[in-house]
């Protein structure tokens, strides 16, 4: 369960995120959508405890991120858009490092299973420099999944993946959700979000312009019932001024 209430992030005079509230329940996948500079990455980074919010509260599986950061982070995985890997650790050594940080007892078996699932079984001894962009992304995802997080924050998770990787990733995301994890995915690939997400949150200029299930958002903001998420997105972000608490 991820709960965000009144999240605001300011940089001097600029308000990057303004009074954002939403919740993601176990088994739900929330797609975070918005134009460039809408505050998506800032929101995810604040939810991951990387940057402190200026205002508002974030609870991960019931733990307040500000007051109980360690308990909250134990249940959390954050996979940034750019895979941040250690240049000199092999794929397998990455997993061992993460296992120690998160105290994962069955790391060897679980790590091997994850690498196999993500198509990296033959890359255990490879350094990041020997991996393609997509493989690096997969390794970052494997590191994020090793400790069985109950809340996942993914920033553009499909960047650099090949078609097979994209399909495998979609399956992995669905499996995680069906296993009871709460997922937030930020992406510009609206097709992916339609295929994977149960809910969507559209932000513009740091504020929420719409949220709800895909069906609800279509019903309230699209002119046609068969409108795609893309239609809804453009209808909302090209015309609507940003407004908070515009719940569908």
């Amino acid at each position, binding site marked *: 369960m991820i709960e965000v209430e009144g999240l605001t992030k300011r*940089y*001097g005079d600029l308000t990057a995120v303004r009074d954002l509230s939403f919740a993601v329940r176990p088994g739900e996948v929330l797609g975070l959508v918005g134009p460039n500079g809408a505050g998506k990455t*800032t929101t995810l*980074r604040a939810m*991951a*405890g*990387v*940057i*402190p919010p200026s205002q508002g509260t974030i609870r991960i599986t019931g733990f307040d991120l500000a007051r109980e*950061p*360690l*308990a*909250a*982070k*134990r249940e*959390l*995985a*954050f996979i*940034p858009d750019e895979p*941040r890997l*250690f*240049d*000199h*650790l*092999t794929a397998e*050594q990455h997993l*061992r*490092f993460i*296992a*120690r*940080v*998160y*105290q*994962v*007892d069955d*790391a060897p078996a679980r790590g091997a299973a994850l690498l196999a699932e993500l198509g990296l079984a033959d890359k255990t*001894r490879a*350094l*990041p*420099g020997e991996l393609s962009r997509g493989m690096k992304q997969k390794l970052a995802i494997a590191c994020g999944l090793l400790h069985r997080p109950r809340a996942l924050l993914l920033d553009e998770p499909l960047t650099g993946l090949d078609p097979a990787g994209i399909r495998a990733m979609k399956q992995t995301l669905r499996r995680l959700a069906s296993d009871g994890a709460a997922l937030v995915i930020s992406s510009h690939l609206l097709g992916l979000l339609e295929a994977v997400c149960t809910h969507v949150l559209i932000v513009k200029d740091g504020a929420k312009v719409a949220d709800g299930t895909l069906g609800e958002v279509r019903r309230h903001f699209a002119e046609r019932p068969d409108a795609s998420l893309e239609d809804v997105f453009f209808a909302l972000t090209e015309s609507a001024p940003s407004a908070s608490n515009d719940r569908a």
Partner: protein
Amino acid sequence: MNGALAYLELRSRANALLGWLRRLREPRYALGSLVMLAYFGFFVFRPLWSTDGELPRAQRSVGGLLTGDLALVLVFLSLAAGWIFGGERAALGFTEAEVNFLFPAPLERRALVHYRIFKGQLAVVIGALLYAALAAGSGYPFGQRVVGFWVVLSFFNLHMLARAFTCERLLALGLGAKRRRAVLSALLVALLAATWASRAGPAGASTGRFGFEGELAALLGTAPLAWVLAPLRAIFAPLRAASTAEMLSALAPALPLLAAHYLWAMRAMVGFEEASATLAEKRSARLRAVRAGRGLLALREAKVRVDPFALAPRGRAEVAFLWERLIAAGSWASPRSLCGIAALPIAATLGLRAVPSWHGALRTVSILAGVLAVYALMVGPALARGSLAAIFERIDVTKSYPLRGWQVVLGELLVPIALLGAGQLTLITVAALGAGALMEDPRLAIAGWLGAAALTPPLTALMFGAQLGLQLALPAWFRPSQHVGVELGGQRLLFVFGSMLVFAAALIPAAVAAAAISGSAWVLLDSRALSAGLGALAAALTVLAEFVLLLRWLGGKLERLDLASDLTR
């Protein structure tokens, strides 16, 4: 030059300047810049408007060195090194962004070379001003020095550009890097040997100068080296002219030489795009590696390395950082290798101890080791600042770990502390072994060794903590793109000053504790060695407590740090 390219360079420089000015609104950045400007004002530019008589001796020496024969020799050797060791492909220094935007653009190759020369000229002008200020003690007027250094630096840049193109042309003719190195090295050796052989009479007789300076002047004036150096002498002539009129007449041969070099570069021009793109990638990768924490080791390729020790999935998380950083440092950083490295100087010192007639050398070695240990303590953390700055590169990931800030900080600091500490312990051991053989009471040396060995690790930790504290306070200074001019110098000066301050402040309570404990021990036990050892131990524990406090503060600072806020300034 192409207008768009001129715009790119001038706009970028102007934006960098504006960025610096914007940061000045914040006191901590203003302070850094002020420190550097004050430093430059007092130590570099003050002689330009100083009216208080003769310049200090050091200033005169620097002026003499920068305009004298030694400078000419250094330029010659740098050019020779470029020819001998330079690559066989014409790789010009473009950034990755320039490669991505300019190489596919409809721009003539000539325009790109002009852009490169233009960029070089901006650096040359700044360099000429700086060297002219530094050479205030040379006795030549400031304006002449600026013009003189501009000629020398421009010549150097154009020569290196032409060399790069020529080397690629030589490659096409079958003279690759290896053969070129062999041929040119042989030619250089032959040139020096022939010059040495034809050297005649005492140096002072021909030049009127004696000692090293005279020897050098005599050698440089001897054929065939004198013939080879003739163009360089022409280039240095405006700088060394006795009057403005003489300088103007010296420019008559120097400027055509520059023009000839420009024409040479343009005529020799070959396709440089592929090699330049490769070079840009390598530089970028090196920069990333430095930022990722491999510091000086960034020049080496990342390799698969065995684990320094078995890392169990359960236990203190900081140990995982130690494990990772040891792998990054390389195989030389393993405990076994470090013991091997330490054994060599210790064995050599024991050898010196064993032979009484070598005790003079032993005294020198002992003093040198002690001084080096202190120097390493003061300078080591500052040198490792690149590696410490890697904490910012990983911060998006490490801050999402279920760890306290102080745990991340401790994890990041453990390896530099361990490596520098190991080096210092080796030096202290060498110093104590030497002192033990020379002192009347060897127990004092043992007590000193124990005290220093106890005090060094926490002091080293404290110094690294102070260094990281300064970096956390001023993260924007650790973006490589911000590493320019005034801020870079101010940053370094502030860091050195800050480190000294922390060192002094940390030693005050430690000294008080040491005095109290050793004084009590002296009264109760009546043993100099024991009281000194106990005093050092008390000091070590005090410094350790200070480090723990600093670590907690650093952890809190890291937890509150919002890089986006700091790095967008």
